[in-house]
């Protein structure tokens, strides 16, 4: 079946990079800010030199063997959504924007809890975006609970799986409680994935390493997201950044498996170019994308589910640049077979979110998934008889042949918001305006997936408790 599939590294090249990364872990090692976490490795055969933990190859190989090759992902209500590890292409909004792009003023503003509800409702109704994510950080709640409260509107209004993460060691357990309140067997049939990021180069903060250990112990899927900054926090060369990236992810896999055997982990990443003049991140730089495409092949080598940040843009507006960056990165993500793709809706180096862009990205992902689906070479699809019949007896008009009607819905994907109309039917509105109208329509008419009243009461109780601890009144949405 003809299907576009992109591979960057040959098996031999992947093995070479893998071995180099192991050498990095053996000779350079990893720094763990948290002493207890470092001890976990040291007690299991790792060595310490000058405050760095050197991880021997056997430990790495053992951990890679223990990590599950497949993770079944479910929705909030317990239905299976996808098998991660089989190129699932689960697109979800980017993570943790501190601003939202205001449609009227085109200026970024601080998101409020009400925006988080809007986001949950919109994503619930996005046909091609298969998972939610805690994409907005609300500015109207105290700093110390901003990670936790993001889960509330999603759990309350949406069924879709959730990609999220905690900002502190303590809040992780509260966030896990939120998920468990909604469904008792949330870990047996997981519907949440938590991101943890090592700090490049080759070090783990207390927060992320403890989060990873706690997630492994709880059996919750953790996405290990290394983020080498080419030219500042990693070598400036793609290959150098790749080796460092792989070494960091391997160190996370080792830690997770030592914390709990068979802990579910996803090989993730967010490589970026550190702008040579400004030092700021450029996520959609071609060099960063090449690192991602290459680590996808490394994940394949060690047979792990794999995640990426694509389908996003570094532009400040929903403009040509935003469309182009989102399109080429989404397409690359789909045709190289990532399982989880975070990014839709995101602008300006993962810091500004746009609802309008999310709607347009949903369209884009529909097109990208269509390309990814490829086509078949069955007799019915080759349509030899149809050609003969139509050309010889229907004056060459395929509209008249029943084969056209029978196959058209299966074969053809049409965008809904993107403009493919003839000029005579054109609305004469720009795509940005069309996207905004769709946002408004979804907020007016979109469906939600309410919880059972009893479950909602329990969730509300936890939510109230979180605000109470922070000493402020809860914001109900």
């Amino acid at each position: 079946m003809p299907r576009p599939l992109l591979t960057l590294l040959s098996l031999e090249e992947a093995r070479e990079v893998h071995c180099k990364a192991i050498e990095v872990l053996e000779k350079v090692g990893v720094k763990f800010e948290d002493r207890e976490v470092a001890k976990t490795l040291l007690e299991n055969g790792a060595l310490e030199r000058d405050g760095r933990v050197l991880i021997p190859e056997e430990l790495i190989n053992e951990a890679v063997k223990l990590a599950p090759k497949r993770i079944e992902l479910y929705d909030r209500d317990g239905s299976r959504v996808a098998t991660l590890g089989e190129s699932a292409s689960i697109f979800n909004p980017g993570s943790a924007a501190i601003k939202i792009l205001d449609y009227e003023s085109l200026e970024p503003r601080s998101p409020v809890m009400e925006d988080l509800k809007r986001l949950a409702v919109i994503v619930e109704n996005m046909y091609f975006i298969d998972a939610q994510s805690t994409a907005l950080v609300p500015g109207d709640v105290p700093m110390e609970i901003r990670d936790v409260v993001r889960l509330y509107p999603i759990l309350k209004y949406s069924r879709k799986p959730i990609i999220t993460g905690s900002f502190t060691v303590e809040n992780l357990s509260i966030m896990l409680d939120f998920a468990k309140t909604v469904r008792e067997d949330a870990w047996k049939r997981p519907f949440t994935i938590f991101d943890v990021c090592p700090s490049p180069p080759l070090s783990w903060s207390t927060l992320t390493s403890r989060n990873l250990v706690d997630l492994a112990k709880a059996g919750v899927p953790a996405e290990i997201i290394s983020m080498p900054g080419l030219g500042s926090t990693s070598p400036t060369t793609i290959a150098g950044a790749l080796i460092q990236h792989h070494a960091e992810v391997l160190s996370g896999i080792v830690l997770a498996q030592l914390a709990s055997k068979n802990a579910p982990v996803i090989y993730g990443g967010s490589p970026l170019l550190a702008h040579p003049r400004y030092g700021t991140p450029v996520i959609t730089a071609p060099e960063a994308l090449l690192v991602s495409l290459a680590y996808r092949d490394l994940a394949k080598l060690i047979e792990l589910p794999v995640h990426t940040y694509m389908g996003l843009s570094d532009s400040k507006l929903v403009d040509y640049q935003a469309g182009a960056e989102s399109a080429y990165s989404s397409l690359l993500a789909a045709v190289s077979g990532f399982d989880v793709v975070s990014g839709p809706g995101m602008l300006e180096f993962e810091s500004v979110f746009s609802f309008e862009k999310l709607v347009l990205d949903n369209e884009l992902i529909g097109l990208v998934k269509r390309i990814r689906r490829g086509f078949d070479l069955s007799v019915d699809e080759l349509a030899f008889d149809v050609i003969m019949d139509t050309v010889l007896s229907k004056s060459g008009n395929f509209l008249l042949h029943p084969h056209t009607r029978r196959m058209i819905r299966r074969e053809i994907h049409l965008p809904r918001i993107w403009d493919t109309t003839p000029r005579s039917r054109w609305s004469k509105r720009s795509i940005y305006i069309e996207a905004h109208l769709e946002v408004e329509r979804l907020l007016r008419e979109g469906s939600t997936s309410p919880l059972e009243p009893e479950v909602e009461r329990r969730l509300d109780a936890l939510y109230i408790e979180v605000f109470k601890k922070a000493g402020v009144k809860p914001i109900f949405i």
Partner: protein
Amino acid sequence: MELFNAIVDGDPDKALSVANRLVERGFDVQRLVTEILVPAMRRVGELFDRGDYFIADVIACAEAFRRVFENVVRPRLGGSSARRLGVAVFGTVKGDIHDLGKTLAKIIFEVEGFEVVDLGVDVSVEAFVEAVEKYNAKIIGVSALMTTTMIEQRRVIEELKKKGLRGRVIVIAGGAPVTEEWVREIGADICGDDAFKALKKVKELMGVN
């Protein structure tokens, strides 16, 4: 001119050997600083502003400068004339281990005559404030390279206020993600998204050239 070029080219070895030769021939070290080293770093700043130089270039130039300054100039300087503008305390906030921008700022401030106390990375709010008191600092540079750690900058300012020190120091909120809006919001004085710009503003506020 050879020393000037060695600094601007970011060649520490050459800069050091040329500087040594100049001083051995009797070239005055004060003049070395004011007529060659500082103008060379200014030139580096211009090249950076113009877009010809990347951060990596600036760091190499700063290293060339530092090598000459530490090995040739400092041992020959009498008293604290090269530190005439006072103490600046620099550090990267708690939870953040990025120090590229801070290191750059440190060297640039040293060139211009500040004594820079570098607190390193992952610095607690208390450590910042204690250093301001201990060194009687005129400037505090609080650096954060991640949007998630920028909040610590606000905490440092709040702590300075609590200790009654806020009025005594110029606060630079440093780091690439810092914006003028953020600086206003947290009540800092200077947006340190660019070290050269920050230095210029510090000198304006202090009324020195």
